[in-house]
């Protein structure tokens, strides 16, 4: 089984460059603007798009992404509408990998089997579910693999060599290395420490390794890209979006461009990196 994620990383390897991975929240601040934003991201240089599934209680997220989720929920976003958004994107783009990222409860309530079937049909390629560690693989990870979706696992600074094999066992697509112990939007990642961690994980897997949490600027994205197969930026894009909203939190004529412009700058940073060492 080859997904769009596998194909994209194979293609980037041929080009000898690292991926620029973007995160935005589905339905932030409304479904239509949000769709326009994800449509603009590939043109701005995003190689992979992560779409947040809003949840009332995002335990691993900092204030920016918490607020983004609440804006989306206030605007009436649901998991069903998130999948509609994916279908809307796929009408125009059948190559850019889409990864849904979030928490388990909305999927559990939607129904695991129905969700996997609907997500696959809509054009989703992978899932990142923060509160499902390998100990709970039977819940969603194994069914997702069977349904032909990549289940992308988070590895963290607390995941030691003893635990890594368990974390990597059912992971596919890529490995998401969380650069800091903390929540999204927290302290800046140290590219040297991250480089060592990526090298450590590479000893255990051939999967591409993308790094996220604490990457905000083109310079930081470039530094990370020199040691990893991808840099993930979320909070900085969400903050740019928020900065473009009007006083009532509604989208303005500047909203899509605010996100796309920052994404372009970040993509330039990633593309400026020396070829990732393999």
């Amino acid at each position, binding site marked *: 089984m080859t997904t769009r994620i596998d194909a994209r990383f194979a293609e980037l390897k041929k080009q000898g460059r690292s991926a620029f991975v973007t995160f935005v929240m589905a339905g932030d601040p409304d479904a239509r603007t949000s769709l326009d934003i994800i449509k603009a991201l590939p043109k701005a240089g995003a190689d992979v798009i992560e779409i947040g599934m*809003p*949840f*009332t*209680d*995002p*335990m*691993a997220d*900092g*204030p920016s992404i*918490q607020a983004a989720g609440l804006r989306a*929920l206030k605007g009436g976003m*649901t*998991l*069903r509408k998130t999948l509609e958004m994916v279908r809307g994107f796929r009408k125009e783009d059948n190559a850019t990998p889409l990864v849904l990222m979030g*928490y*388990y*409860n*909305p*999927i*559990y*309530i*939607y129904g695991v089997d129905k969700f996997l079937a609907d997500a696959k049909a809509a054009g989703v390629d992978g899932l990142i579910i*923060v*509160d*499902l*560690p*390998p*100990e*709970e693989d039977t819940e969603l990870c194994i069914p997702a693999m069977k349904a032909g979706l990549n289940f992308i*696992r*988070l*590895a*963290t*600074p*607390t*995941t*030691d060599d003893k*635990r890594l094999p368990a*974390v990597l066992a059912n992971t596919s697509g890529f490995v998401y290395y*969380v650069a800091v*112990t*903390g*929540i999204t939007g*927290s302290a800046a990642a140290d590219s040297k420490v991250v480089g060592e961690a990526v090298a450590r994980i590479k000893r255990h897997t051939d999967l591409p390794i993308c790094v996220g949490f604490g990457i905000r600027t083109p310079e930081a994205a470039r530094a990370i890209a020199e040691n990893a197969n991808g840099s993930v930026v979320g909070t900085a894009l969400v903050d740019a979006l928020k900065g473009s909203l009007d006083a009532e939190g509604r989208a303005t004529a500047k909203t899509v461009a605010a996100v796309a412009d920052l994404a372009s700058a970040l993509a330039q940073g990633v593309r400026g990196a020396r070829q990732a060492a393999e």
Partner: protein
Amino acid sequence: MNQNLPNSYRSGPDERGHFGIFGGRFVAETLMPLILDLEKAYVEAKADPSFQAEMNVYLKDYVGRPSPLYFAERLTEHLGGAKIYLKREELNHTGSHKVNNVLGQIMVARRMGKKRIIAETGAGQHGVATATLCARFGLECVVYMGAVDVERQQPNVIRMEMLGAKVIPVQSGARTLKDAMNDALRDWVTNVHNTFYCIGTVAGPHPYPMMVRDFQSIIGHETRQQMQQAEGRLPDSLVACIGGGSNAMGLFHPFLDDPSVEIFGVEAAGHGLTQLHAASLAGGRPGVLHGNRTYLLMDDDGQIEEAHSISAGLDYPGIGPEHAWLHETGRVTYLSATDEEALAAFQLLSRLEGIIPALESAHAIAKLSELAPQRPKDHLMVVNLSGRGDKDVPQVGDILKGRKK
């Protein structure tokens, strides 16, 4: 109801932390290694006689255990049925049952070499107990408390600060207990290397529901012995209020395999079950939040709904996973009491017995007017008086004053 009833109700959870389908370990990878370490440390401590011996010294001389089992004569006469005993957890140091669990967890934290303790709190009872034991053992203490609860439970905020704890008012979500728990988890993920998360109830990822239950089970074990001494037999029924459900689980667990003992948990029905409330078994369904699968209040999209109760300690949209399982197996009967019923019970116990109960515990007292009169006079009913009401006096005073005007 589940047709596959277990041989014992006391053998759970399984090695993966499950009570039937409930429980589990639904946490971010960053926390997973720590949760496994904690489980190992707790299992080792439990098997170490010196751990229990040290606990016993503090339980007796610092907490003041055993707590009395008191025959509430005037309340019994007033209700005209079952003979009512109160398990006086409100007499513990710090004023509630919370200290039983905190003492245990702090001893485990010390064994693990953790120097910084964090906790969430609703009514502030768990926060006060945590701040107290951190002061006693010289540990840094940070307590997350919803901003709404900081307002309505001022006496406890002042107490925690006096004890040297840092109280952080949580501004996210409904700004109550659920949000305090989210922020405590965020702190833990960030400071995982030096921090121990002291969870205040029988919820969260495995091993917390099991560990907290074990530390609280002293309530039920003492009750068995005390009732044996007082009446020469087991009680016929048990009643306790439930937010997360730690005081209830502590009283219930030692009696789960005694079929003659009827067991009643009382959830908070807030304004009523068709309006805003905090009764997750009565008004919720199974979902996943805060590290475990359990009954939760939520909408059709799986978004968690905000709970409401007059009592800050019950104002939570979930319940411990073992209660969810005891509900589905039918071993425990879960009822609910409204804000109004709790307020009336608060005043009733104060006037009849000279005991001002916590608003949380008043929910259990409130159901006695349904449970006690219909039972015979030789029926022995034990109610867990889980906390004292000093912290609620300003709030209840304001409510009653407002009505007189």
